[in-house]
């Protein structure tokens, strides 16, 4: 398959992720959108790792997965903490700091 397909798919995934972050109000869905962005990048990495026959592209993906896991761990912990005080994970309700 030509490289263009992979790149196209990855670009679509990334755009969906970005739009998800901007448009959705539920924090969990936003997390998922962020993961989508990360995975779009991962797709590019593995594609070109195989294209250039270079291992480091694939290794990068493992690092990204680990980092994403760490990030999500922190994010979910935050969410739990917020849900305890606020009883909601609608991020639009978190707007007391402004101006």
């Amino acid at each position, binding site marked *: 398959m030509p490289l263009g397909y992979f790149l196209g798919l990855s670009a679509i995934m990334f755009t969906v992720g970005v739009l998800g*972050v901007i448009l959705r109000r539920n924090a969990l869905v936003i997390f998922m959108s962020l993961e989508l962005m990360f995975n779009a990048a991962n797709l590019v990495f593995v594609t070109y790792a195989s294209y250039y026959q270079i291992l480091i592209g694939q290794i990068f993906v493992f690092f990204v997965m680990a980092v994403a896991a760490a990030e999500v761990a922190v994010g979910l912990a935050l969410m739990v903490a917020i849900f305890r005080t606020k009883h909601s994970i609608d*991020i639009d309700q978190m707007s007391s700091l402004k101006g």
Partner: protein
Amino acid sequence: MLFQEAVMNSTFSLVPLVVFLPILGILLNWLFGKRLGEKGIGSIASLAAGGSFVVSVLLALALLQNHEGAHIPLFTWISVGNLDLSWVFRVDTLSVTMMLVVSGVSTLIHVYSIGYMHEDVRHQGEPKRFRRFFIFMNLFVAAMMILVSADNFLMLFVGWEGVGLCSYLLIGFWFEKGEGGLGNAKAAKKAFITNRIGDFGLLIAIFLIFWNFGTLNFAQVFEMVPSVAQTQPGVLMAITLFMLLGVTGKSAQIPLYVWLPDAMAGPTPVSALIHAATMVTAGVYLMVRTQVMYMAVPGAQQVVAWVGAITALFAGLIALGQFDIKKVLAYSTISQLGFMVAAVGLGAEVAAIFHLTTHAFFKALLFLSAGSVILGMEHGLEAGSHGHGSNHTDGSNHTDGIHHDDPQDMRNMGGIRKKMPITFIVYLIGALALAGIAPFAGFFSKDEILVAANQGNMLIFVVLVVAAFLTAFYMGRQVLMVFFGDARSDAAKHAKESSLLVTVPLMILALLSVLGGGLNFPGVHTLEYWLEHTLEIPHATEFIVPIALGSLAVALVAIFLAYLVYGRKPLASAKAADPLAKPLGVFFRWMNQKFLVDELYQAVVLGPYKKLADFFAYPVDQGVIDGLVNGMGSLTVSLAGALRKLQTGFARTYALSIFVGIIAILVYLLTRI
């Protein structure tokens, strides 16, 4: 040999002390002065100035071994691009000569001030200001030393401004006194503002130098002068003339001399030190230092010579019509500074420095002796009012402009010779030296200037001879009015000789005024050989017998004439008119009123300026500019309010902002590809 050199170089590296000893004096007096009492304060200040003098002597001795001198860097403040702001001391024969004069005369005047200010602070009713006086005096010494030891134009300017500040502070020392409680403050302000005009000129000159030479270092600038003179003579002309404007401010030349007579509002030691012996010669020093630049543009030299000569004549005429003992000396100072400036213009720098030095001796002597006279008069005033009740006239008859208890008015004096014999003798010596009577110091130095004029420009020569004649005449007039005849007021009747603390420095200065001519004695020319290591001396000074005899004769004739007018028949009373008033008529009135120059400036410059300032202050500034600024201000504030609203607090808005930023960047890049 090596050892000797090492000693010498270490001597040169002492030079920062000439600035830092006075500063140490300031610190000590500032921190501990309150507990020390007057004697302690005076001693510290005098020792600080004396220490500077000792260091200067050491430097001079080292220079005898190594004429080339040295550059002693203290620290680099910052160097930005090719602007190198370093504080470097320059030790060469010229700077050390100035250091010797400044610190030597200062030391004597400091000692004198201990006695003088002891009386003065009590007379003025503010004994607490004793300490302040000595702090300012030490500050002045430090600033003056920075000025003369500078190795570049910037440090020179720092010192130049520093002495200007001290001058301002000391003129206004009794700031709440004087005419209507404001007189002294006004005098100080006048000195300050007039000097700022001059400083403005100097500053422009410095900017031009940096702009065209790329450096402010003396040696580097002077090295480049010949080539710049070739390529851009106009620039050099502008630099030298702007510098001359600075000189006319600091050294009280036409047109900016008007501040100096008013500066006599300061205590007498200040008049002696700052406004006669040292600070006002800074302009002369500057021109001598930058002699290379002036020599490269003969046109500028001509201007300088004429400014000096005309000032010498003009101020001499005004001096003739004054009654205040210090005002006479002030105008005499202006006139003598004119001689020096003219000498620089004529290319006779050595003569200028020579006259500067001897003038420092005898003019300091005259001012200090005048101070002694004033002290005596004040004493007499108090003794008179105590002994006889208040039988002297009060201020009711002011029609002739005499204040009958003014201790500075010569018409109130007379016959002081017998009351204050020491003061009389030293005053006489000073007056003879100033008048140019051989073998006193002034004779030799003035003669050198006249010789240079004779060889350079006959017209200037004539003007200077007339000025010299006037000098001898008004000094004769002054001595006769003050010391001879009978006492014309109670104060004069009860005048009393001053204390030793006052008279001893006078005697030393008198000795210097007698012997000062030896510095550059005809045929020996010590000073010339000394200075030639630093200055270019185009033609050696000659001693021309006819000119020397001629100038001596002129002076003697002038004194004789003064005797005929004022000596044979002294003023009858304090209210009597000056004997010259009648024959000279209106002209004498003019001289007395200083040719109305102050009024002229008031009408031509200050009045319109004030109107303009009012115009800018009210309609323009408060109307247009303020409106504009306030408008900008409120616009900014409303903009801030609007931008603030964008910060909604919603995380999604912030993400959108990032997204919009990226889209903008990508769209821009895609149009470029």
